């Protein structure tokens, strides 16, 4: 069908679009004369940041640009640490849910990263540099997750945040118990259908995992003791990640809403000796902030989403601030490609709703998610030695009027607003050329088919239904795919 080729053309085009903004080799870069929001040691006016080999080499008001450094003049602008989105589903090829089994820990989002997802670029243009790419919430124990940097233009293999621990998605409440949709006709509802069952599924899986771990531990012990001819236990890809959870090698990111189910998971985690790294959404976290803080888990929440389902009916926009007040490490996340483009705005709402300071509001989208993802030695603040992942705004990023001018990852400019705008005319022309070609080809093919068929049409021969020719392509331009 013509549409397919058209889509391919658009994809190609879209992929090319912001490539122009891809940066050169990281060398020495000097961002000068900006208001630098370090997050860890205050704001510095008329300050500069020296970047060497992708790392922050110096920050301060009295730096001089080294010879040969590429200068980024940020006069009147604000530099903050690149935004870290602790809950994202961008850059995933196809569905984020392996929704069949109640435990889908064998599925791994890292296997289906799609570096051509245009939302990588769009979120980059919203100042996001790092995102926690999660499996969906269809299962009490969902698939494995991966932290990526938004290195637009790089292949999938270069997206993962090297050194960041992998994770696994858990989900509690309405989604794993399938409250809000019916199974297709003829399909049995899947267990569990209650919060009681959700707990049982998780406990049962960890009972199995504990048993499985024991088999491996025994095997390894006997092997290292020198025993010969041992048969290793059968590898179970479903239980491997759960063993890693119990060994502290994999983080649990648990989708949850109600206070009761959060407490449930804390109990189950205690029973099996692991820790929940983050409670995601955690919209009733404010009701049990002390318990969450005591468990050592972080809370990654929305700014002001509520009432979209029953378990979100007690959600309040003060959640982030109230949990933070009680000692929980809190981040504000997006769970949505658009929301990710405005996380600076969403963070600012916690100043209004709950009275966080500007710096604490910034932490919600920088240092705190970095801590939650175990990457705070590398990201989340503007400190010497950290990765040069930065977002440059024309105004205070906590203002609704702030617009991202440049986004840097590892010291490379991956987004540049001026370059994006300047490149649009070329891209539009390129698109038109492709469309014209496509149209011409379609017309030529049509004409060819006509001339070929004419003499040979026999009675009784089935006539082909008209294919979507030029007309369909034209309609496709206006967006027939949506």
């Amino acid at each position: 069908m013509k549409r397919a080729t058209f889509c391919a053309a658009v994809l190609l085009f879209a992929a090319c679009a912001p490539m122009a903004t891809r940066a050169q080799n990281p060398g020495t870069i000097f961002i000068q004369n900006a208001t630098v929001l370090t997050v860890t040691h205050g704001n510095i006016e008329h300050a500069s940041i020296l970047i060497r080999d992708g790392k922050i080499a110096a920050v301060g008001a009295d730096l001089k640009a080294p010879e040969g450094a590429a200068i980024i003049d940020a006069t009147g602008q604000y530099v903050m640490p690149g935004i870290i989105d602790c809950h994202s589903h961008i850059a995933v090829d196809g569905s984020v849910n392996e929704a069949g089994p109640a435990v889908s820990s064998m599925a791994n989002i890292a296997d289906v990263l799609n570096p051509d997802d245009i939302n990588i670029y769009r979120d980059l243009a919203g100042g996001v540099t790092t995102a926690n790419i999660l499996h969906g919430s269809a299962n009490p124990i969902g698939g494995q997750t991966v932290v990526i940097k938004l290195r637009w233009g790089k292949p999938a293999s270069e997206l993962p945040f090297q050194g960041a621990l992998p994770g696994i998605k858990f989900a509690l409440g309405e989604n794993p118990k399938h409250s809000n949709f019916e199974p297709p006709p003829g399909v049995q509802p899947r267990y569990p259908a209650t919060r009681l069952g959700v707990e049982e599924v998780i406990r049962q899986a960890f009972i199995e995992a504990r048993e499985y771990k024991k088999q491996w531990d025994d095997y390894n012990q006997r092997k290292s003791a020198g025993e010969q001819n041992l048969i290793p236990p059968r590898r179970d890809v479903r239980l491997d990640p759960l063993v890693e959870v119990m060994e502290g090698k994999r983080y649990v990111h648990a989708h949850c809403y109600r206070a009761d189910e959060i407490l449930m998971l804390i109990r189950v985690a205690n029973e099996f000796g692991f820790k929940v790294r983050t409670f995601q959404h955690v919209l009733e976290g404010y009701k049990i902030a002390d318990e969450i803080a005591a468990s050592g888990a972080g809370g990654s929440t929305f700014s002001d989403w509520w009432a979209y389902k029953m378990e979100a009916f007690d959600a309040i926009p003060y959640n982030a601030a109230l949990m933070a007040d009680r000692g929980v490490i809190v981040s504000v996340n997006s769970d949505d490609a658009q929301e990710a483009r405005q996380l600076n705005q969403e963070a600012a709402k916690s100043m209004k709703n709950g009275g966080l300071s500007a710096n604490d509001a910034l932490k919600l989208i920088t240092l705190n998610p970095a801590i939650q993802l175990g990457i705070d030695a590398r990201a989340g603040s503007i400190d010497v030695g950290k990765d040069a992942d930065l977002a440059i705004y024309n105004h205070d990023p906590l203002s609704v009027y702030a617009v991202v001018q440049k986004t840097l990852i590892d010291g490379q400019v991956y987004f540049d607003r001026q370059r994006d705008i300047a490149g649009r005319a070329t891209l539009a022309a390129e698109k038109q050329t492709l469309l014209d070609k496509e149209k011409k080809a379609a017309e030529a093919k049509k004409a060819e088919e006509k001339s070929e068929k004419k003499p040979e049409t026999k009675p009784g021969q089935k006539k082909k239904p008209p294919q979507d020719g030029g007309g369909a392509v034209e309609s496709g331009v206006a967006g027939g795919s949506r």
Partner: protein
Amino acid sequence: MKILNYSSRALVLILAATLAIPAWTQTATTTSYAIQGGKVFTLAGPAIENGTVLIRDGKIAAVGAGIAIPADAQVIDATGLEVYPGMFDPVTQIGLNEVSAVSATLDVSELGDYNPELVAATAVNPASAHIPITRANGITEVIAAPGTTGFDLQSGGLIAGQASAFNLAGWTMDEMQINRSVAMVINWPTIQTRTFDFASFSFKEKPYADVKKEYDKSVNALGDWMDRARHYAQAKEKGSPALYERDLKLEALVPVVEGKLPVLVIADEARDIRNAVDFCTRQNLRMILGSGAEAWKVKELLKDKKIPVVLAPTNRLPEQEDTPYDKPYTEPSELVAAGIPIAFSSFGTAFSRRLPQYAGTAVAYGLPHDEALKAVMLNAAQIFGLADQLGTLEARKIANVIVTSGDPLELQTQVRYLFIRGQLASTDNKHRELYEQYRKRPQPAR
């Protein structure tokens, strides 16, 4: 929070309002207020420093500098604060949608494709938790539009029913209602070859020709309805009641074909917008474009036909993969520069309180600030024919007034006072109550 200087009488009053009883307003019988000392943005002229807004019997009585305060007026000290008309969210499901995923709480989408006789006001729940939550962010009046899609994936018919405008405070809808019928909602059909199928949770492709046929059928049917409504109007005018059967659907469409009631046509793609404009022109209908994600592609047409646009939330993703990343952000300024009237809207329920954020984002990307204020306060009133009652701080208008700590479009700005229908409305709400309740929770013993 800043300590405010009230007159002692006002202090009692504010305490009554904030310590409330789950009432939307204090129970005192005050009918006269003087908001004094603030910077007053009337939206009908230049801002007034140290201005006064007098409110009496639910209406604005006077606005200006150096106005004498009547002896019986409660004085609200707005020194250091800013005074604006309340904000107006013109396409919402407020009152018709409590919890999006719980169908028992939804009255947004009726079955059937043609329901012109249905009126939102019939089922707006004045006790909805969304009402006090939304107004606490400075939104004082909204339109509930049946069959519109919001955050909640609802869709309801081609002619979805009549939208109703109401104030966000009152004991009953009768009290709250501004106008029972401000527009007929038409969800313009769209040619979608690829649709999401919830049953199989995957995308389904349909041949273009089939979808186009369905589309043409829908547009023809819409035309038939309008033609029949015209015939019905003629029969009604000329015949006696005995000669025709009363038909509620056609009766509801009569003001539409007579050009008395505008149609709010929800359409996003440029092709659909063009087709809708063509249809409304041929049918001689007064069109308001709703959503209009690609309205920027048809600016000349909209300008030429004088069609205003109620814009989908600014904070959304671009329509197409190759649409500039910031197009939804720059669209409002492009439309305004082209001379097309716009109003911001949430198209939702829970996100109605984000209305100023949508306007603010548009300012960040080029929309003049004063135009943005109009597009959240005044323009919707003009577009829906309510500007004689709402939208500016001028005498005789409904006293929907907000007093803010600063720029109402900025994220950190607090709404300090809120007047709806001339009464000091409480900014208490479910969220604030839960916050107060749980922040006082004692540390559990360990």
